[in-house]
């Protein structure tokens, strides 16, 4: 049985095709641009192309993420909080995670899950850009370091410069002052990652930081994010690139469950 999970996020749209609830047979990712609904269709078509499947061969389609209501082909929409928990639990299944940190383009969340990946507790910030990927995007723009190079550049830092402003906009002035004082750009950037890590730490403490932390969301690709978190949380956080697809995988798995129930 084939189920599709499409996660339409504020930064990028991710999709997977899952065979019998276990095997990922196709995946796709693209930046979300223009209409989220069209983006979802594009990703879905790409999945069909990669897997050489026909639209009719996909048994169930679940959408998630902020644009989930805009995907017309969906048979169910599920909150991205739920799907991220389920997906991360599956991705890290051999390590049995209970704490998940999801840092996306416009939000960050600390999620505690139970044995099945169901959410027991969560704390999130989606009102302020300072703790999210958007902060890094802005820095990339005004420090003129492309997004693909941002983590690599930050990793060269030997003396990270703390950012004292809480706000992503007000810190711009501070960062520009750092630049004019001749502070190397890598130290400034690492400071930005540390400040995001600080805010993530606050969220984690609110759900109680009593277990290893597993990463999900767009920033899992950035070694600098992991390094900053390791340092700030004083423990090694666990991260795999696949975790960027947590919500999409979670959606596909929940879609499968749903389908089982319908069939009964």
């Amino acid at each position, binding site marked *: 049985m084939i189920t599709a999970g499409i996660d339409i996020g504020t930064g990028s749209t991710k999709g997977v095709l899952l065979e019998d609830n276990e095997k990922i047979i196709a995946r796709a990712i693209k930046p979300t641009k223009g209409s989220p609904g069209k983006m979802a269709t594009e990703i879905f078509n790409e999945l069909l192309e990669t897997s050489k499947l026909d639209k009719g061969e996909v048994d169930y389609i679940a959408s998630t993420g902020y644009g989930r209501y805009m995907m017309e082909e969906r048979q169910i929409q599920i909150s991205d909080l739920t799907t991220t928990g389920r997906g991360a639990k599956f991705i890290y299944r051999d390590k049995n995670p209970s704490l998940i940190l999801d840092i996306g383009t*416009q939000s960050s969340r600390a999620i505690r899950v139970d044995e099945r990946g169901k959410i027991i507790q969560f704390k999130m910030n989606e*009102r302020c*850009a300072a703790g999210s990927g*958007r902060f890094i995007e802005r820095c990339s723009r005004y420090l003129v370091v492309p997004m693909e190079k941002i983590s690599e550049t930050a990793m060269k830092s030997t003396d990270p410069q703390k950012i004292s402003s*809480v*706000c*992503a*906009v*007000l810190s711009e002035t501070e960062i520009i*002052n750092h630049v004019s004082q001749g502070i190397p750009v890598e130290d400034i950037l690492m400071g930005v990652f540390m400040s995001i890590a600080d805010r993530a730490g606050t969220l984690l403490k609110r759900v109680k930081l009593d277990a290893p932390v597993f990463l999900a969301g767009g920033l899992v690709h950035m070694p600098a994010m992991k390094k900053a978190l390791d340092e700030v949380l004083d423990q090694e956080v666990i991260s795999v690139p696949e975790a960027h697809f947590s919500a999409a995988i979670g959606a596909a798995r929940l879609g499968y469950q749903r389908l089982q129930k319908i069939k009964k």
Partner: protein
Amino acid sequence: MQEKYVAGVDVGSTTAKAIILDMDRNIVGKSLQNVSPKVAEDAETAFLKACQDAGIDREKVVLITGTGYGRLKVRFGQLIVTEISCHAKGAQFIFPKTRLTLDIGGQDTKAIRLGENGEIIDFSMNDKCSAGTGRFLDVCADALGFSVSDLGPISEKSRRPVKITSTCTVFAETEVSNQLARGRKPEDIVNGLHYSIAERSISLMRRVGIVDEITFTGGVSRNTGMVRALEDKLGRKINVSPLSQWFGAIGAALFALEELEKGSDPKFMPMEVKQ
């Protein structure tokens, strides 16, 4: 008797303002100067421009008070007073019945409750987050391709303000672009931004208690659309003055004048920090 003057220099995050008062409390000179990373120089430029505006030599100014975010950079002054005290004093000088001031500046917002004699009863401020400050309007005006000075007149044309749901300046910027792409009218978006700031300002004012009369100060008070949104949300008129950007500087100059009236000799005054 030799003619004497006092000055107040208010160094904010975005602009430096200076005011020259004569001994009869008349405003004889004023200036406005953009702030660069060289804050101390800008503070002095603001002061010199105000002297020029008054048509007097700087030596005639016997006592200078520094205030504002960059008050410690007013090194040529003798007195330093916080901007909270100065804004309150300035507002009550122009509008004597003021009991509450709302100051929306370039990077922060303050609500100050005042007593009859200008004493500060309570205040509340937001200087941690750019939402609800002048910076929020700067960023969103940029996204719309307007200058901040256009915002007031543009919003006048609005019939149906767009509800801006993002609190954060960064997210609001994206929201503004999306609304524009969706075909919403720029004037309705701008009006929506004004209402969003008005709501945040009112919740700040509630923390100190909303009482009559309210005086609106700071750079953002020049925005007529902002005044309209606030009056609509509050359901009452608020005081605004063309001088409102200078209230901090006026208050500072008044503190200098009072010091002189107490008989202090500026020559022997060490650089002093008041409250």
